[in-house]
């Protein structure tokens, strides 16, 4: 009887955990594709200043292949109630090929997280230059981090680089992101890890749960 009581209690607890996990993983939200490794939120205001008709370029930066929009802090230099001018965006890889383009139509609100769309899908992940072609006549200031990266305006070096986040298209649940998570899980680690690592870790965790539950049933039967 004691063992049965423990089995039922543990079984219910495991079912509750599994339901919680499924709910957690099913939540859809915008998912990151990466960033330009400049601290977000931006640490320093006005690290780059670009007048209407000017071109702001971030050099030696990587555009992730799954980036569908670029998010960065853009403000008007004088009147922050005004709407932003048209901003065209393009990414050129280090061989001079244009990998991605996009346009933010005139009239978007300025702010600490302005979203600039990219035409998606575009080319593969590449190292190169991300450029913003600012329309209109007003001057824009971009926040970021002083001393970080290499950023120019009309070819002139700026004090720092803008803080940029890249987002994947739409909203996704963690289930939809599993393939991407699997790929990313093997990056930035020892070369012994790779695409196999996340599935093995998941299997190991499942085996651990199964083993602990069996062990508990045996030990707690009183």
């Amino acid at each position: 009887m004691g063992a049965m009581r423990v089995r039922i209690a543990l079984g219910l607890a495991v079912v509750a955990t599994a339901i919680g996990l499924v709910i957690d993983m099913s939540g859809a939200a915008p998912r990151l594709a990466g960033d330009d490794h400049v601290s977000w939120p931006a640490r320093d205001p006005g690290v780059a200043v670009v007048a209407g008709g000017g071109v702001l370029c971030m050099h030696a930066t990587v555009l992730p292949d799954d980036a569908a929009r670029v998010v960065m802090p853009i403000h008007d230099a004088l009147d922050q109630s005004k709407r932003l001018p048209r901003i065209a965006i393009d990414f050129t890889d280090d061989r001079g090929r244009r990998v991605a383009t996009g346009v933010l139509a005139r009239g978007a609100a300025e702010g600490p997280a302005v979203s600039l769309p990219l035409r998606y899908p575009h080319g593969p992940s590449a190292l190169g230059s991300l450029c913003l072609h600012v329309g209109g006549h007003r001057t824009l200031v971009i926040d970021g981090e002083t001393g970080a990266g290499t950023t120019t305006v009309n070819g002139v070096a700026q004090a720092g680089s803008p803080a940029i986040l890249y987002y994947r298209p739409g909203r996704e649940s963690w289930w939809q992101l599993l393939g991407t998570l699997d790929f990313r899980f093997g990056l930035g680690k020892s070369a012994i890890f790779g695409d196999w690592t996340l599935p093995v870790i998941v299997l190991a965790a499942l085996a651990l749960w199964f083993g602990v539950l069996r062990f508990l049933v045996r030990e707690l039967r009183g």
Partner: protein
Amino acid sequence: MSGRLGAVTAGVWARVRAAVAPCLRVWRRIPRAGRACFVIAFVNVAIWSVVVPPFMVPDEISHFGYAQYFAETGKPPPQGPVYPYSRQESAALQALEFGAVYGSQLNRGIFTSVEQADLRTILAANNYPLGPGGATTATNQPPLYYALEAVPYWLSPSNDLLTRLVFMRLLSALMAAGTVLAVFLFLRELVPHTPWAWTVGALMVAFQPMFDFIGAGVNGDNLLYLASAVTIYVIARAYRRGLTTARSAGIGAALAVGMLAKLTFLALVPGAGLALALLAWRARPSGSTRALRMLAIGVAAAAAPVALYLLLNVTVWDRGSALAGGLSSVTSAAGSGATTVTWHEIFDYTWQLYLPAHLPLLGGLMNHFYFPGIYPLWQIWLDGSIGHFGWLNYTFPLWVYHAFQRLVYVLAALGAIGLWRARAAIRPLLGLFACYAVMALGLLVIIGYTGARDLATSQYLFPQARYLFPLLAFYALAIVLATKALPRRWAPVLGGLLVVLAMAHSLFAETLTISRYYG
């Protein structure tokens, strides 16, 4: 030729077996459930060690730097005003975008194959592993943890820094598993007639997510936790079964390991010393001389390795003076830094770190008020134990902390009932618990003392929940007491439910970590 090779191999194998045999004998004497808890804890923390990206456990860069310097030179870093890390580690930190990732919630590390290729190129071009050994947050610590980490550092099949880190993290996982085993054995001494409670308490520690998170990284705290849990266990064992020469030497050895692991352990030494003296006092009926001899053996076992360390500091390692390895950082007077801190300030800070600042009976006792707007007992200690991950930059949603707070109220009430029900069994152990109380108080005071000094010089909020983890054995005991509040038929059920809750807590902490770094 092949026959000679065979003979040599057989000889080496025989020696390995002879060396391993005593360890295996000790291993087999541990109850099967204890061995299972050890393996479960190791596998769990090993999984964590793969989930957490390199250098994302607090201070891992400093601890790895110390261990690498020790592995390359055989001595602790000189900690002068020079750059602390090797070119290899600096290059890895840069290529992993450590600077952007560690202090932020939204920045990520390597997400593309382009950056991964860049990382490989940078690591291949910067493979010089010896740095100048400048001062970091870790270099004032004694070298035992780092000396042990030198073993997996050299056993790694590759010279690649990130591969070495994998193996070094596994040693930390092994220490975490050892801590869990020590907790199991500690509970076996205190509740000998309730075997299921040993498993429940040990697994509660094994699945404590912040313990797992720290265990996943190269961090000297892992040896501190192990030494603390073993010290608490061996004292309990000697108290229950009587002091012998071997047990006295065991207490001394555990104290020596702790003191050579991390200076924080010094906070536990007065309580442990008191316990040793009490044990010797209780052993007087078998002869005062024998009792004194056992006491001396314990003291010598604790003091000799530390004395050797102090000697090495001034001779072989040339670290300036005997205390230059870091003892000075906890023994120097308050206010010796750039800003003076009065003892009253230290008292106020320490009090408010654990207790309410405004109590009717206190009156004008508190002259200084720290932690405006927060109550450290909840926000630092409880919330921090539930989960302040990374370099304290990602957490669970707020409702999780509120839910756990309610659970703590329930468990505290159950614990009080359990304590009352177990009072007859506890009464003979009051001396032991008095010693444990001195140990715990020592730790609380040293955290307060260090925090007050740190706040005065850096305005940095020093305390973190992990600083209390040397007392994890008492956490396990509290859980066991809470289960004991229920009738005998239901107590194991509550124990099992609490373990599954801890497992779920650890699991969701892992998914949170995956979403933080890879999502």
